[in-house]
């Protein structure tokens, strides 16, 4: 027992020593960034700052947000790097974020910086809503591609559209909030009433509609562009449609958690998170990044996506979230029978 414990200790210290030797400070970083990207992010950061070690805590957006809110009185995280801006606004309204203007924040697109001075969070990249359209299955069903959100409410698409449930999915919520912003409160709900008639069912996650469209289960999936591009690259017969009225979006952003033990290291990390290198790093998966002029086109991304992004009012989205979700649930979630 003791021998194996010693071995374990040796092994552990071995792996620690093999890492960056000078790692003196450790930061606990909460993130919702895809697991496969995390190692790359840490590596790029450590190339410049070998003395700060990042301990990742990763989960999906909803769970990380719930975790942060649950730890409100006893925060465990030092920095949040890569979480939806709407979530960060929630944390901000709980007074959980340390406002900080990182060096070079002026170089970012204004859309990507929190409106307070100094800002409570700074953006990294955007994920944008889009419609995944399975050309093979749609043709079988005799459908023509929709070009706008309004098209999708046409009765001919009845049962052929699938979208995420905004109560469980961030992507679903950004769709709903964008429709309310685009069409106004009344127009937005009227639109969703019509769309609801066409929806086969609401999924729990935001990427599932696109994956279901990719596998032909339901020909049209309301999802996000990044997911569509990935499925298309995997060989799915997809067309990624950017509705003409404009599309909702949310961004991944970075913030310092108030009460962190190591404010200096946290600031260093946030400074890095908005540099050109960092933005180039985000660009591998995201076509839209916070620093203008950095983004190179990403394979299979639809054209005109950047222009179609609406002028998203994050404050509206965050402050009305509870009320919108309640209304949505009352209108559409009580329908128990699935429509074939």
């Amino acid at each position, binding site marked *: 027992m003791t021998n194996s414990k010693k071995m374990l200790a040796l092994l552990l210290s071995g792996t620690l020593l093999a890492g960056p030797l000078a790692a003196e400070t450790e930061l606990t970083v909460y993130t919702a960034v895809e697991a496969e990207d995390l190692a790359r992010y840490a590596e790029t950061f450590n190339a410049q700052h070998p003395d700060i070690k990042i301990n990742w805590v990763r989960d999906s957006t909803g769970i990380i947000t719930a975790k942060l809110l649950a730890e409100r009185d006893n925060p465990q995280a030092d920095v949040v790097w890569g979480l939806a801006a709407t979530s960060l606004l929630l944390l901000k309204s709980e007074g959980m974020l340390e406002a900080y203007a990182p060096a070079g924040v002026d170089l970012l697109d204004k859309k990507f910086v929190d409106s307070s001075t100094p800002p409570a969070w700074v953006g990294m990249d955007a994920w944008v809503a889009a419609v995944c359209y399975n050309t093979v299955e749609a043709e079988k069903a005799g459908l023509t591609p929709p070009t706008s959100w309004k098209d999708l409410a046409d009765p001919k698409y009845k049962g052929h559209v699938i979208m995420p449930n905004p109560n469980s999915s961030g992507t679903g919520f950004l769709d709903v909030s964008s429709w309310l912003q685009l069409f106004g409160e009344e127009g937005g709900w009227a639109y969703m009433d019509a769309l609801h008639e066409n929806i086969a069912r*609401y999924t729990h996650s935001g990427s599932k509609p696109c994956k279901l469209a990719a596998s032909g289960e339901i020909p049209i999936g309301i999802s996000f562009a990044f997911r569509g591009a990935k499925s298309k690259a995997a060989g799915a017969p997809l067309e990624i449609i950017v509705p003409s009225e404009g599309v909702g979006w949310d961004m991944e952003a970075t913030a310092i958690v108030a009460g962190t033990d190591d404010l200096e290291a946290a600031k260093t990390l946030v400074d890095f998170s908005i540099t050109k290198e960092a933005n180039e790093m985000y660009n591998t998966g995201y076509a839209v990044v916070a620093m203008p002029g950095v983004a190179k086109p990403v394979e299979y991304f639809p054209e005109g996506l950047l222009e179609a992004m609406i002028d998203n009012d994050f404050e509206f989205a965050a*402050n009305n979230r509870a009320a919108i979700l309640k209304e949505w649930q009352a209108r559409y979630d*009580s329908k128990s029978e699935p429509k074939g």
Partner: protein
Amino acid sequence: MNLSHSNPVTLPAGRDVRGKLSRDDVIMRGGMIVIALYLVVTLAFPLYAMLSKSFSTFRFELAQYEFQVSDEAGVFDGTILNGAQLNQSTGAYSGGDLAAGSDSRLAVTPFFPDFSFRSPVQYQIRNASDTGRFLVGSDLYDDTDWLTLDSNTFRRVQLRPVKSRGIDNFVNYFSTPALFNSIKNSLWIAVVSTIVTVTLAFWFAYALNRSCMRFKGLFRLVAMAPILVPSLLPGIALVYLFGNQGMLKELLFGASIYGPIGIVIGSVFFTFPHAFLIISTALAISDARLYEAAISLRATPWRTFWTVTIPGARYGLISAAFVVFNLVITDFGLPKVIGGQFNVLAVDIYKQVIGQQNFEMGAVVSVVLVVPAILAFAIDRLVQSKQVALLSARSVPYQPTPNPRVDRIFLAYSTLVALFIVGILAVCQFAALIKFWPYDLNLSLNNYAFDKMDGGGWASYFNSIKLGLLTAVIGTSVVFFGAYLVEKSNGFKVGRALFQMFAMLPMAIPGMVLGLAYIFFFNNPANPLNPIYGTMAILVICTVTHFYTVSHLTAVTALKQMDREFESVSSSLKQPTMKLFARVTVPVCLPAVLDISIYLFVNAMTTVSAVVFLYSPKTTLASVAVLNMDDAGDIAPAAAMGMMIFYTNAVARILHLIASKGVLARTQAWRNR
């Protein structure tokens, strides 16, 4: 309960003679208290925390805000307006509007009927007490200083609710049709699944026990297979079979598999072995003399069936029905995967907690879900306690006689059921190996590249095995030792009865409820046990507690077979009880010990409901990965991971069989003497 204890000759009542507690008694009582405490901490406290959470509400306390309004020139005259009075005079918000969730906000402009964001009027707002909180945009203000705002900024002011206690959550629940409809849905699904499963399982068990058909061993093996997979796996198979791109979707004639149909078919699959086991036990014993009497009375086989067979198996049927009902109504994985828009209680808990971070409402739904689960459990216990011995010493065991025609019908029926079970598993394996259904049907191992998907990759699989082994080892030790103490210690009647009750409780608590209760109890910084939150330890504790009851009953049954004479002899030889326990009791009961450990291992591998709230990024599990991959739309990899769980459990079962055989040969030889 202990008949060996009661004295056949009734002595006149006198003063109780209380023996001095021996060292052994002290050790045994101490041990019992420790294990009882374990159950209190891991079950009673968390459930209490959850119950109290369901009464924790949020309200807008308007009285704790004060306002001042300037004239057109921006001059304040010093009149202070209180929020509560403003609301009374304007009637802006009704009482129902003031009940809130933790995340609610309330705009203040409705308090001022002539408000316009273009007007030059200035507004001042402050918290009248320390607990008040409001936002301007998303900036939080929680001090009591006056804040002056122009009207355009003032419309961005949002009040935040404060914590309070009350039944608002329950009122809210029962006034939201989207939520309380789930009660009806859950009950409906559970009743239909129960009727179908019990009927199918009854005839299957009947075929195996009362006919002379061939391949009985094989059928018995196949019928138990669904126990080895997570309950959501049949859901995935059904998508491939009956989804819009399904292989057999024509069989549904346009109906959608996403909804009640899918849930019922999947539930039949995963509850079948449970119902089959119970009914099979009930049918295995029966008195041949009753059938002889029926024949000599010239009763038709039909009449014999209804007057002899069914009454003989009635306790088994009722018990099976309630077990199935309980499994279906508390199951979460299957309706999550195949339920579509058909909301059920267990999924509602998940949606409230993971989707909306509305922990209070999650607690309310949990309380609602516990009610039918406890009722079903209580009725089942009641029925079981009424069960009397069917076989007396004079009984003649019933032996089926060959009847080629009937045997063929039963063989055909059993083959159909077996095909259904094997078919579901085969479809999952097939789906896992297809490159890109339905466009690229080449075989590939791409779907096993779990590290590229959500759910934690291969690490989840190894975590699950670790959890299974730890649960098996620790759980078996705790359960068996606890059962021994409660069964064999002397006196201390009240304590032992209490312990029995605690040991029964976990079975009545749905996994989702247990998991959520653990969040409330262990994720509280004030709890000294808080550090185990997010570790493997909490998963092991939760799983042991979740599956405590069945393990405990197995252990008690085995221990009851051992006469208390052993304890008497050992104490008269002045041997410590613990030595007896280690040298005699455990070896004699080794088959039961092995049964408990395999039961715990298999369930730890397949459980989703409790652990879905408790895993952390470092302790992701295979069963949860199946759920998360399906959730993200990676259905084929989810099937692949589900089948990995199946093979692992199958191997564990085979090892268990070999070990049991070996152990039986070495330690149980005395039974054959």
